[in-house]
């Protein structure tokens, strides 16, 4: 039972490539004809592709910063030629933002909106995910849900907001309902696509090796659908932010959306622009603080294989 391959594996193919970071060192002598798929010049940094990636990253940051600078410059120029009542300058916006942040107003409204957004996203995503999995596994469920999906993706968010206002009145429930209603079909469609695209050869392997349901789910189904589900969540987060603001604008007495409408009513243009900045900050925090790390974690194996 203790047999192992020693020959001809250890005759040729000296491997001088250093082990990649965090991995066990490959044997000093590698089996004949057994080049790792990602092998490259022995001993060089190019073997891992790190300097190339670093350069690419730097270049991305540079051009991204350039893009932001272009937006701010255009904004500044426009604010100099357009009536300040309808276009606040970046400077005036920054002052308004600082005033909001200094008091409790910004944090209070932000927390209210964030709470509604998180609840709506969580409920909508959970429902969309469960329905997507069920529809992916059972064609009858898929056929049953198809007309509902069709309606859900074509009805504009404002209609959901007006209906929710009619049903639930002003307040949290209306806003959370609108966010969830917008998010459900997005997560559903992506989850369904993921389940339908699962590699059936791997499922077959799991069945042959008698994987219990728990392992089938955690080792085959979940990693298999992670990519489209996370794409759906990313989409849902973006649409969720839009929906929460719209719903608050129409159906709430507080939150960022309500603050928008109040600033507009009082023609406080710099404050309106400051709230836009808050919203952009919220979206960026969601993307960089939650979604991107999640995607990186789930897709880590791909990044490693590419390196």
């Amino acid at each position, binding site marked *: 039972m203790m*047999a192992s391959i020693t*020959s001809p594996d250890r005759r040729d193919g000296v491997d001088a490539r250093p082990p990649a970071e965090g*991995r066990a*060192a490959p044997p000093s002598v590698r089996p004949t*004809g057994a080049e790792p798929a990602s092998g490259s010049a022995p001993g060089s940094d190019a073997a891992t592709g790190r300097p190339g990636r670093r350069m690419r990253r730097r270049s991305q940051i540079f051009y991204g910063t350039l893009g932001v600078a272009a937006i701010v410059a255009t904004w500044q120029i426009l604010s100099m030629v357009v009536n300040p009542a309808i276009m606040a300058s970046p400077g005036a916006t920054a002052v308004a933002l600082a005033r909001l942040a200094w008091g409790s107003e910004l944090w209070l409204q932000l927390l209210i909106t964030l709470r509604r957004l998180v609840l709506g996203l969580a409920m909508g995503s959970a429902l969309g995910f469960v329905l997507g999995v069920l529809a992916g596994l059972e064609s009858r469920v898929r056929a049953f849900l198809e007309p509902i999906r069709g309606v859900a993706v074509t009805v504009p968010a404002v209609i959901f907001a007006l209906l929710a206002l009619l049903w639930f009145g002003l307040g949290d429930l209306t806003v959370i309902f609108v966010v969830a209603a917008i998010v459900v079909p997005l997560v559903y469609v992506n989850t369904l696509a993921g389940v339908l695209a699962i590699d059936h050869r791997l499922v077959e392997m799991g069945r*042959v*090796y008698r*994987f219990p349901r728990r392992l089938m789910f955690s080792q085959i189904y979940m990693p298999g659908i992670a990519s489209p589900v996370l794409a759906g969540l990313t989409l849902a987060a973006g649409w969720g932010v839009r929906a929460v603001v719209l719903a608050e604008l129409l159906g709430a007495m507080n939150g960022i959306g309500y603050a928008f409408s109040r600033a507009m009513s009082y023609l406080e243009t710099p404050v309106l622009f400051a709230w836009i900045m808050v919203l952009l900050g919220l979206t960026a925090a969601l993307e960089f603080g939650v979604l991107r790390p999640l995607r990186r974690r789930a897709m880590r194996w*791909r990044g490693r294989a590419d390196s």
Partner: protein
Amino acid sequence: MIVLDNVGKRFDDLTVLEGLDLRVDQGEIVGIVGPSGTGKTTILKLLTGIVEPDEGRVTVPEGPLTYVFQEPRLLPWRTALDNVAVVLRAKGMGKSAARTEATGWLERVGLKGFENYHPEELSGGMAQRVAIARALAVQPRVLLLDEPFSNMDTALEIALMDLLQMIIEGNSMTVVLVTHDLTEALRLADRIVELTPEGRLRDLDVSDRLALAEEWLSAKIRPRS
């Protein structure tokens, strides 16, 4: 004992197997040879139970059954080590014990040092060796091999066959190997049956293996008239 009794299998209107009889004794290594598309893989799938026969009866002994597929079928998001460990965990082994055991099996197939590589980082032959380690790790009672050496060079193929032979003999495993390469079957199998294009099995006389191999090779390289 593995028994296929008058087994028939159709896919839609296409009859793949008809009136198929096969018996494989415990500890026996049987090679099934035949050209591509004759239903060799279907026989293995019938033995796993993931495909049901339309006619006849399939009997497989109780106990672990493993399958080395034509392609490695490794989980792309798991390392080589985890790909082997996961089948041990499916058998109920603890995570840490499974990883220790899997490390030993990777070493046995010549992949020491590659435990933390993902399948995409391995060559086709290396990935297939991980698949072989995965199949052997659970110490199966029945081992099914579906052209498992097709991605490997000859030297590695022979080395792996030697290893397989040693492990199989030490564990009285029942093995069914399907291949289109008769020489592969001649090296590993005690008995060889040929699956004809009509979906029937015919025993080959393996008393003179060298002559059989020569005959097969000469037929293979004979210029078409």
